[in-house]
């Protein structure tokens, strides 16, 4: 009961838990589409590509206005995505190499800008690295509110365009044939993916963002074959890992929140792959063994 009380009334714990849960929900849903479209690593690349935008936003606004930094992050992630698309369209470079190139180059350029900031705004940049490497424990109410608003927008769009997103995730050619503007819808999905990345940056950070997008989706996929259920399960898994991670890290351990969430999430993925009701590995091998046994009896 004490824990429940603290969760409701302890300022830090409430913010951290809420922030992580919001992130878990939105990244679970948008990550599902990314995973189904085989863009599991796009999130990782775009999270890194956001760095120069964050730095530019900081240099331009000079303040730690969270919303300016978020917009900067989203814009530069968007440019990163366009660059990846151009590379794939105009050369024979494979998607992994294209992602890797954009990821490292954008991030490297961001690091250059970071050193510029460190030189000219000495002392004032405190918090900028937290924005990137995530410090859930440092979330303030204002940030949580921004995250909530962005997530609600993203999830509303998903509900409104559910059919379009579904078709484009499973059969883009069919989508085109029934005159769904596939480019627009695909860009829309990517924009929403960027929103969830931006929401995640100051919570779990660049490196762990990939797990927040891929983990819930990969786990949820093992429990169902229906997209609607998959989205709901992924959102729940994301939310639960967020909450559990926040609780474990804030109470008791000194381990940063992001890594704890990811470890919890990875365990859920492992359990789902083994025991998932729809596709669990264990059930399949049991079935196979039974079949062999029956055949042996004949």
């Amino acid at each position, binding site marked *: 009961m004490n824990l429940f009380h603290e969760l409701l009334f302890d300022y830090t714990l409430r913010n951290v838990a809420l922030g992580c849960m919001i992130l878990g929900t939105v990244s679970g849903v948008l990550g599902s589409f990314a995973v189904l479209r085989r863009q599991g*690593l796009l999130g990782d690349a775009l999270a890194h590509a956001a760095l120069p935008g964050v730095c530019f936003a900081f240099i331009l606004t000079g303040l730690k206005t969270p919303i300016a930094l978020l917009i900067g992050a989203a814009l530069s992630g968007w440019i990163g995505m366009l660059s990846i698309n151009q590379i794939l369209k105009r050369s024979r470079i494979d998607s992994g190499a294209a992602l890797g*190139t954009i990821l490292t180059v954008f991030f*490297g*350029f961001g690091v250059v800008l970071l050193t510029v900031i460190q030189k000219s705004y000495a002392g004032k940049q405190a918090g900028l690295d937290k924005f990137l490497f995530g410090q859930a424990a440092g979330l303030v109410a204002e940030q949580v509110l921004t995250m909530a608003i962005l997530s609600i927008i993203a999830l509303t769009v998903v509900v409104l365009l559910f059919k379009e997103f579904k078709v484009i995730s499973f059969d883009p050619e069919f989508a085109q044939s029934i005159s769904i503007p596939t480019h627009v819808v695909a860009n829309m999905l990517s924009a929403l993916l960027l929103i969830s990345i931006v929401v995640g940056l100051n919570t779990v950070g660049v*490196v762990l963002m990939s797990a927040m997008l891929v983990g819930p989706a990969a786990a949820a*996929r093992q429990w169902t074959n229906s997209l609607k259920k998959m989205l709901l399960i992924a959102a729940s898994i994301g939310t639960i890992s967020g909450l559990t991670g926040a609780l474990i890290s804030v109470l008791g351990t000194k381990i*940063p929140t992001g890594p704890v969430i990811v470890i919890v999430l990875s365990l859920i993925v492992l359990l789902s792959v083994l025991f998932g009701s729809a596709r669990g590995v264990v059930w399949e091998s049991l079935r196979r063994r039974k079949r062999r046994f029956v055949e042996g009896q004949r």
Partner: protein
Amino acid sequence: MSVVLGIALVAVATSSACALCGVFLVLRRLAMMADAISHSILPGLVAGYVLAQGPNLLTGFVGAAASGLLTVVLVEALTKSRRVKEDAAIGIVFPALFALGVFLVTKFFDNLHLDADAILFGVIEYSPFDEFKLGSLMLGPKSFWVMLGLFVVNAMFMTTFFKELKVSTFDPELSKALGFSPSLIHYSLMALVAVTTVGAFSAVGAILAVALIIVPAVTASLLTYRLKQMVAISLVIGATCGLVGFWLATLVDVSISGMIATTLGAVFLLVFLFAPNRGVVAQIIRRRRQSARFLAEMLAVHLDSHEGTSDEDEESRIGHLITEMEWAEPQADAAIATSTNLGWIVQTGDRLQLTSEGRRIAQSVRNR
């Protein structure tokens, strides 16, 4: 040894060692594995340090290589279970291991300030101050010797097993048939990538290590189809960008690692746009030339079909062409200019006349 020379040596040795691994990684479409490994070596590195009770080069390397291989094994196990696609498998395995690494760091090295920034960005700037000493002899930065050693190991592996690497990269089935296991080669290569990344990561940071592995090889792949040339070009691009990036960084006083990655990106962009055959500009020019040639061929066929008929005089008038072929004026101009340049037609006043070469072209187009 001067600081500048020290950093330059580290930059060149690191970029060369990385570029060697990168070529095969990129050709095997495993570029993102480099990114994954660069993060997932953390728990192994920390475990190695824990065993040696302090930052120990050898145990660190062994641990890091082990967790690099563990990444590969886990990704393959997940992919082979057919429950998770490969990209998603990579996307979950490396953050999990990285998170485990952070956990180990906070548990065992609480007082050791292992900064996330330092891991990701790298501080090549400090490398000259950690010199390799032999007795009283100062032999330059330790990282230089480490990376030089790794370069030699990589180069020896690649020259010894060049054929095996080549065959198993381009045709794994053939390699199996010839009796050497593609997966053995695969794991050896991955172990090298892991060890190289560890070395590079303490010298220049994780992200630059990945940049140095992927970008030179990707850039080289736009310039040549030949494996040996690709290796050579990657080495040159890596080393040059290392030095140029370092120079630029000192010029404007910013992060050296970041500037080297930025320089690599700039070179990639230039090659992507202007590569002789596969560059964007070359593609556009080729497409233009093809469409101009197509127009010229149409013109030749048109003139040929009316040659010697009663309406030849009218049909060969430039103004008539524009209406009959439904060409816009620039198209007609392009067709006429191309045909004239190729020596297919001659122009007298506003009449066009086929040359013998033009007639031959018209014939061959019709016979297509």
